[in-house]
C-alpha cells in the first residue's frame, strides 16, 4: 500500500510537534537549534507532499529555498552559540535573560 497525502501530513505534523516541544523544553541551545531544524524539515515534507499530490514542482522549488535559508540560519545560529558560550560558559538559554525591562 502506498502512503497517501494525509499520511505525509500526519508525519509532518508529528515531526513539527516534536521540534516545537524540543524548542520549548530542552535546556541546551544546540538541541534547540536541532529542534528548529526538525520543524523546518517537517515543513519541507509538507511542501514536497503537496507538490506531489498536486502534480506541481513548486513545492520542491520552495524546499530548495528553505534548505538554503536553513543552512544560513544554522551557520549564524551556531556562530552565536559559540560566541555566547565563550561569554558565559553556559549553553542554558535561561541564563541569557539580561535583555529585559
Amino acid at each position: 500500500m502506498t502512503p497517501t497525502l494525509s499520511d505525509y501530513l500526519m508525519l509532518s505534523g508529528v515531526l513539527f510537534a516534536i521540534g516545537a516541544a524540543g524548542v520549548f523544553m530542552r535546556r541546551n541551545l544546540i538541541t534547540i537549534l536541532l529542534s528548529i531544524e526538525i520543524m523546518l524539515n517537517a515543513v519541507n515534507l509538507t511542501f514536497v507532499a503537496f507538490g506531489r499530490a498536486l502534480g506541481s514542482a513548486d513545492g520542491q522549488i520552495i524546499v530548495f529555498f528553505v534548505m538554503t535559508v536553513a543552512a544560513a540560519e544554522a551557520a549564524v545560529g551556531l556562530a552565536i552559540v559559540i560566541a555566547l558560550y565563550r561569554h558565559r560558559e553556559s549553553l542554558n538559554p535561561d541564563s541569557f535573560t539580561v535583555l529585559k525591562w
Partner: protein
Amino acid sequence: MVALALIPLLPLLGFLVNALFGRRLSKAVSGAVACAAIATSFLIALAAVWRLVGLEPDARELSVRLYSWIASGDLSVGFSLRLDPLAAVMILVITGIGTLIHVYSTAYMHEERDSEYARYFSYLNLFAAFMLVLVLGSNFVVMFLGWEGVGLCSYLLVGFWYQKKSASDAGKKAFIVNRVGDFGFILGVFLVFRQFGTLDFQEVAHAAARLGPEAAFGTISLMTLLLFVGATGKSAQIPLYVWLPDAMEGPTPVSALIHAATMVTAGVYMIGRNAVLFSLAPNTLTIVAIIGTATAFFAGTIGLVQNDIKRVLAYSTVSQLGYMFLAMGVGAYASGIFHLYTHAFFKALLFLGSGAVIHALHGEQDLRRMGGLRKDLPITYWTFLIGAIAIAGVPGFAGFFSKDEILYNAFINGHTLLWAVGLLTSLLTAVYMFRVVFLTFHGERRVAQAHASTRAPEHPGHPGHPGHPGHPEHPEHLHDAPPAMAVALIVLAAGSIVAGYAGLGGRFAHFLEPSFGGALVEHASEGSTELTLMVVSSAVAFAGIALAFFFFLKRRDAARAIAASFSGVHRVLDHKYYVDEIYDTAIVQPVRIISEDGLWKGLDVRVVDGAVNGVGEIVSASARGLRRLQTGSVRTYAASLFFGVVVVLGYFIWR
C-alpha cells in the same frame, strides 16, 4: 487716476527709507526725506483736489482700483482709493498740517540721537500713510487697514520714549483702548456685509438709500451703533476717551499731529463717510449726539483744573471732538466736518505752541511753574493767543464759524438741551484756554525759583534732552521757537484766522454735499434766529475770556478761594472724575483676576496642563506594567509567538 495712489505711497516710501537706512543717515537727511515725502504728497493732493473741483459738482469723484485684494465667494474687496469732496478735505488737512508738523519736528526733536531721530520720522511718515489710506479707501476693508495702522502708529509714537515707564504704559493704554473700539467697528462691518452684501461705501449708500429710516431699533441701528463704538475708541469719546489724555506722554508734535489734528478725527470722518447709513438710524444719531455733548462737557470740566499744559489741551481735544459728534448726531454732517477742519488748524497750533514753551523751558510742562513768558517768547505767545482765541469762539476766527454752525444746527433741529450744554461747554472752553494763556504767558515768572532744583527729580522731562540736566542759567535766556518751529506756528496761526471763511454762505457744506448723498439736513436759513444765536455764543466766548482774566490773572486768590470752598468738586475734577480708578476697579482688575486666577491658574494650569500631563501619566503608568512582558527569555518569546500563531490559525479554521 493713478496719481491718487502716490498720495499715501510717498509717505510710505519715506517710512521705508528712514526705517531701513535711518541708522546711517544724518539728522538733516532723514528729516529732509520725511518732510519731502509728506510735502510732495501734499502737492499731489492739491493737484488732485484741483482736478476734483474742476469737475461737475455731481460728478466730483476720482477713483482708482489698484488691484483685487480679496475675492472669496460673494466677497470681493478691491484695494481701491476714491477721492470725493469729503476725502479731499481730509487729505488736505492730513498732508497740509502734517507737512507743517514734520517741519516743526525737525527742530523740536533735534536733540535726539541720529537713529532715534530717524525712527521718529519713520513713524511719522508711516502714520501719514495709514491715515491717507483710511480716508482714501473706498470700502470698509481698506478703511479698516488704515484704521488699524493709525492705531499702531499711535502706539509707536506715544511710547516713543519707551525707556520711560509712563510713556510705554500710555502707548499700551492707547492701543488697548482702541482695540475695544475696533472690535465694535469690525462687528459693524460684518453686519454691513451681511445686510448689504457689499463693503463699498458707495454701493452700501445706494443700497441703504432704498430703505426707509428705521423707527424702531433694528439692524441698521445696531450696525451704526457698532460702527459708532469704533468711532468712540478712535475719536476719544465717552466711554473710551481715557487713552487720549495719557497719550500726551508722546513728543508734543505727535500730540499735535495724531491726537489733535488727524487720527482722532477718524471716527468723525467715518460717520461722515457713512452719513446715508447713519441718517437711517435716528436712534443711533440721538445716542451719538448725546454722547458727543456729554463728552464735550465732561472733558471741558476736567480741562478746567488740570495743571499739565498738554493735558489741558488733550481734554480740550476730547471736548472739541464731542462737538463734532454732536454735529454728526443732529445730522449736520457738513458742520461736523467743518469743525474738524478748523479744529485741525487751531489745535495743531496750540499743541505746537505748547511744544515751543516746553522746548524753551527744557521739558517743563506744569502750568504752575510757568508764567510771564510773553516777552521772552513773542512768536509763541502771539500765535498761541490766536489759537486760543480761535478755539474760544471769538467772532472772526476759525473756531467761531464752525462751533457756531454746530450749535445753530443743534438748536434748529430741536435739541435745545444739547444746545444749552454745548453753549455751556463753549464757556468752559474759553475759560480753560485762557487760563492756560494767562498762567503761561502772563503774570510774574514762576520759572526761576522752580527751575534749578525742584524740577529735575520730579520731572525727568524729555529723556531725549539729556543735554539739559540742570541749566541753572538765568531765565532771561529763554529762547523763542527756532525758525523751523516758528514757520509752522505762523502758518497755522494764519490758518486759524482765515480757515473759517471757507464756510461762509454754506460753500463748505455745499462742496461736501455729494459725499453725504443727500443725507444732509437742509434747513432754510432763518436769518434772525441765526443772528441771535451767533450773538449769544459770541457773548459766551467773551464771558469765558473775562472769567479767565478775572480768576487767573487779576485775582489768583479768588480762584484759589473758590477751589478751596468747593474742594470736593475740585478734587473730583482734579482726579478726572476718578474714571481711570473706576475703570481699573470695574474692568481692569476683574479681567486681571479672571485671567490670573481663573484662566491661568485654573483653566491653563489645571485643565489644559492637567490634560496633557494626565495623558502622559496614563501612558507611563501603563507602560510600567506592560514592560514586565519583556522577560529577556528567548523561549518565552518563542512560546508566545507559537501560541499566537495557534490562536490565529484556530480562529480562521473554526470560525
